[in-house]
């Protein structure tokens, strides 16, 4: 029962998912896993998985280590010192697998339901575009970092050129910029990337503003969307409101008290 040469690797949602796949493939009981066989196959699969994304790799490796520990413990003869009754070293893993399997099943059941906006529709809310068919609105997609950088380059080119007589450093903090960007969303739902940069902004200000923007995207407060490649990049809130955005940013500590003067004296809605 060796691992056959798998042509198409299914996509696994993590080490437990992969283990369940192996258990099913080997037609063995989840409660009585032939740990040596499964461990070997698991390791073989790991090598085959073309490119584990870096985030996930660690989890797969931890499981590999766990499997090997269990395997070795199974090989060891039971020690004489019995402070505890002999426990099957697989117990914990089995429990974890059983638990995960239950939720995997329920998840599948949820996915099979008649999902709103996918399989069924309810009245109210949806507007039907009056335009003729074929004029489908272009799909909007997330702009990539590369595209953001391209846009930044455009802005930098537009920015006033550094002049010889320019003295003194521009002082603008990241916090200030975050505040300034979010303030734009009080009035507008969508803000064009280029409009974040004032025509008379210096390079320093442009760059800090860009960093603030990246931070907001990283924190998933804003989303950068683009209708197609080379189209204007548009920013929108990824959270429900500016208040929520403010909370999200504040929650994350490192930009504490980012709220600038403009809000401090206004309505302090919390």
């Amino acid at each position: 029962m060796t691992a056959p040469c798998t042509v198409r690797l299914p996509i696994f949602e993590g080490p437990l998912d992969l283990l369940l796949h192996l258990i099913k493939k080997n037609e063995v009981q989840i409660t009585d896993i032939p740990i040596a066989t499964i461990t070997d196959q698991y390791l073989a699969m790991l090598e085959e998985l073309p490119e584990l994304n870096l985030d996930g790799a660690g989890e797969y490796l931890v499981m590999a280590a766990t499997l090997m520990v269990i395997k070795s413990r199974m090989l060891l003869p039971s020690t004489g010192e019995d402070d505890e009754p002999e426990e099957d070293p697989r117990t914990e893993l089995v429990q974890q697998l059983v638990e995960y399997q239950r939720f995997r099943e329920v998840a599948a059941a949820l996915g099979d339901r008649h999902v709103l906006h996918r399989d069924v529709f309810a009245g109210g809310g949806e507007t039907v575009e009056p335009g003729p068919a074929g004029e489908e609105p272009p799909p909007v997609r997330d702009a990539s970092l590369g595209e953001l950088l391209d846009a930044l380059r455009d802005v930098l080119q537009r920015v006033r050129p550094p002049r010889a007589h320019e003295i003194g450093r521009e002082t603008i903090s990241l916090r200030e910029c975050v505040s300034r960007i979010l303030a734009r969303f009080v009035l507008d739902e969508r803000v064009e990337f280029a409009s974040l940069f004032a025509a008379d902004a210096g390079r320093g200000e442009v760059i800090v503003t860009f960093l603030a923007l990246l931070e907001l995207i990283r924190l998933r407060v804003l989303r950068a969307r683009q209708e197609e490649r080379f189209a204007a990049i548009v920013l929108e809130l990824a959270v429900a409101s500016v208040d929520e955005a403010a909370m999200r940013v504040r929650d994350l500590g490192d930009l504490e008290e980012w709220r600038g003067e403009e809000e401090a004296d206004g309505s302090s809605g919390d």
Partner: protein
Amino acid sequence: MDQVETDTTTGNGNGSANGHAHRAAVTAPADDLGRLPAILESLLFAAAAPVPVARLVEALDGPSRAEVVQALEALAHRYEREGRGLRLAQVAGGYQLRTPPEHAPWVRRLLRERPARLSRPMLETVAIVAYRQPCTRLEIEAIRGVDVDAVLSTLLERRLVRIVGRKEAPGRPLLYATTRDFLEVFGLPDLAALPALRDLGDGAEVLVARDLTVSAEGVAVTLESPAAEES
């Protein structure tokens, strides 16, 4: 159209169209029960979200709750029997008119809407939150065996889960729970209607505390609690 009947009982004399329709609904008495399903159809059509029975009873101001429920059933049967383009669904503590799934291709084309994908990680994560709520990120990760930070953000963004507070534990981690939208999206009347977790041996766990969910807005409200708060 039904409401152009001439039984303007009392009123201000001049039966304006508005006042007229209003009257018709308010005075749907026992002898008029036959009209109840049609009136309910209007109410549900006009509402954007699932309507709790209590709200229907209140709006009708006459028929009892039992009569209203019976009329709703009659309406539901009519839709089924006549193969109509609507179905009466019981979701998120209320009733809602929905299109039958077999009509989805056409509706989708009309709306020019590509349905947002529900990936397996999303489904697994939201399932865990649904059964274990309120729960922390770590608790979810313990079950799935992978990092769920990004998935949780997506679920929050899609409003399928929400943050309900912090756990009184080291680090005060955030607690997640499912939303009313969750029930609506998956067409569930309440959390108790979740598919049963298969009992795979070790001690049966009944996971859903029914009354756990009745609190602030956006929460799953069980059908039995008519005080379905809106806000």
